């Protein structure tokens, strides 16, 4: 029963925050400062997420094969490679470094 309570609270909470962002009135969003802020917030969130997925192992920071893979993706991006090449480079380099015992 406890588990269902936890699930129910999580479902409602997570849905509410998703909807809250979408339901902010247009009048508020049109203000220049809010506009700038709303454009920059996803940049901050995605940058932090990318870094964490690259370097985090639970709550510890580690430097492993993923870092090499994401670095390869960054190089591919700088070279203006297509999307699939970018992701492929990350996967292949990570697997390669791992196979070499990195």
């Amino acid at each position, binding site marked *: 029963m406890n588990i269902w309570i936890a699930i129910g609270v999580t479902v409602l909470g997570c849905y509410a925050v998703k909807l809250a962002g979408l339901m902010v009135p247009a009048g508020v969003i049109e203000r220049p400062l809010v506009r700038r*802020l709303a*454009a920059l917030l996803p940049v901050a969130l995605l940058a932090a997420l990318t870094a964490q997925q690259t370097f985090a192992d639970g709550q510890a920071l580690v430097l492993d094969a993923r870092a090499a893979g994401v670095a390869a993706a960054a190089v591919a991006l700088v070279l203006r490679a297509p999307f699939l090449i970018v992701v492929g480079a990350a996967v292949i380099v990570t697997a390669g470094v791992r196979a070499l015992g990195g």
Partner: protein
Amino acid sequence: MTSAGSGLTLLQTCALSLLVFTGASQFALVGALAAGGGPVTAAAGAFFLGVRNAFYGLRLSQLLALPRAVRPFAAQWVIDETAAVSLAQPDRRSARIGFVVTGLSLYLLWNLTTLLGALGAEAIGDTGAWGLDAAGPAVFLALLAPMLRTGTERAVAGLAVLLGLGLLPVLPAGVPVLVAALAAPAVLWAQGRRRSTPRGDAPEGNR
């Protein structure tokens, strides 16, 4: 999925994926329950991880210009991946298509893999062995790169990376990313100050 090992039934595991549909929150909830946490504590942690979706919604509502009646349905799909794909599109039409295609395919895939995982099928095996765990950050990086057009965006991204990594070891899961979001107002505030000081107009990139 990890749910099976923490005492969740098949129905509960699938309900989570169908109704919560925010991976990080689901893992946090399951992990907290498995560690013996109370239902409200576990849900609170999951909620923290979900809060960032509100910020995506703020931007997506401008970008997609959805009718009010559609928003309650679209809301369920407001997650990291749909936001990243939609924001990377050049115009509203492709942003809408990107949102729907990403939302629908992820929703189907996520729930299908949850069901398979809960049924005990080792459908995917060890993703780490193949380097597939680097695909996630690489996708985010590829979607993020076109958004880093000016010095402002780069400063925000750089500060967010520092905050997100620096606070990771010391704050509970989900909170460092939220703190990293403060990079956005912080950089805007710093720019506002610089602009209002008459002589301190240092060159601030190619705005």
